[in-house]
């Protein structure tokens, strides 16, 4: 009986650890970074070599007046996606104007269409000059996106 109770207790402890990581970490980051989307996976090579496919980056909320040219920001991009699906673009700010801003992927030759400030979700968390990135941790999202498109 004691062995069985110990076994159950171990399962509860492991479940609590997994739950804390899966639910607690995003919740903590949401509070800490002030955005509902604190983690983003890089699914394209448009920001190479600063960001690589499969990287995981952290996003922090940013006020309109704090955005500068050269910042790498995340904005909501519904273009080309089925209704109800959200897409996000992580590109560098190249131009600021009163109502909109313009971004461009470092690896792209053309700039994106102007983005409204209300569509900006945040800026990548920086470590020195470069964005803080966790290599390979974003591959789960990359594979999930591939499965969705297939």
């Amino acid at each position, binding site marked *: 009986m004691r062995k069985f109770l110990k076994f159950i207790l171990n399962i509860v402890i492991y479940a609590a650890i997994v739950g804390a990581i899966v639910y607690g970490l995003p919740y903590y980051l949401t509070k800490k970074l002030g955005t509902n989307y604190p983690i983003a996976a890089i699914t394209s*090579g*448009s*920001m*190479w*070599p*600063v960001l*690589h*496919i499969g990287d995981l980056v952290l996003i922090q909320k940013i006020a309109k007046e704090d955005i500068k040219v050269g910042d790498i920001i995340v904005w909501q991009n519904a273009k080309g996606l089925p209704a109800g699906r959200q897409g996000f673009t992580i590109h560098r700010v190249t131009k600021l104007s009163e109502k909109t801003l313009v971004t461009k992927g*470092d*690896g*792209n*030759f053309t700039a994106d269409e102007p983005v409204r400030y209300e569509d900006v979700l945040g800026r990548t968390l920086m470590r020195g000059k470069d964005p803080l990135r966790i290599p390979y941790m974003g591959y789960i999202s990359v594979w999930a996106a591939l499965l969705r498109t297939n």
Partner: protein
Amino acid sequence: MDEEVKQNFWQKMTKGEKILAIVLAVGFLFVFYIALDANKYQATVHVIAGEGKVGVNPTTERLDFGDLSPGTSAIRRVDIENGTTISMYVAIVNFGSINDLMTINKSSFTLSPGKKDVIEFTVYMPASAPIDATLTGRVFIFKIPGPWR
């Protein structure tokens, strides 16, 4: 003396441990064979300044994409043939700094006995490519016997 120790070691193992040891040994040999049999290529590309400049080096031993300026791309193809009598599961794995710029038309597929196929590797040089840099990598084409496929 050594033989005695070995015999004792084998004899001391339970039936389950012996089965597990045999399964592990067979598994290891299988993985070793697949790794040894894999086609291995070195991939390389050199970034040059300018617009629309491409210089391809036609070597067959390497996946050499030559010199590419930002905005250009090069394609290299690898022909693969299954000369055996069983189906092969082909899986392509690539590593290295060239990895981010290289796309492969198919990452895995099944090749029936006697059939041929072509794997296409494309390198596109983005606007942010550092001029005069040489990006390299390794490409492994694993052929895994899969008669059940």
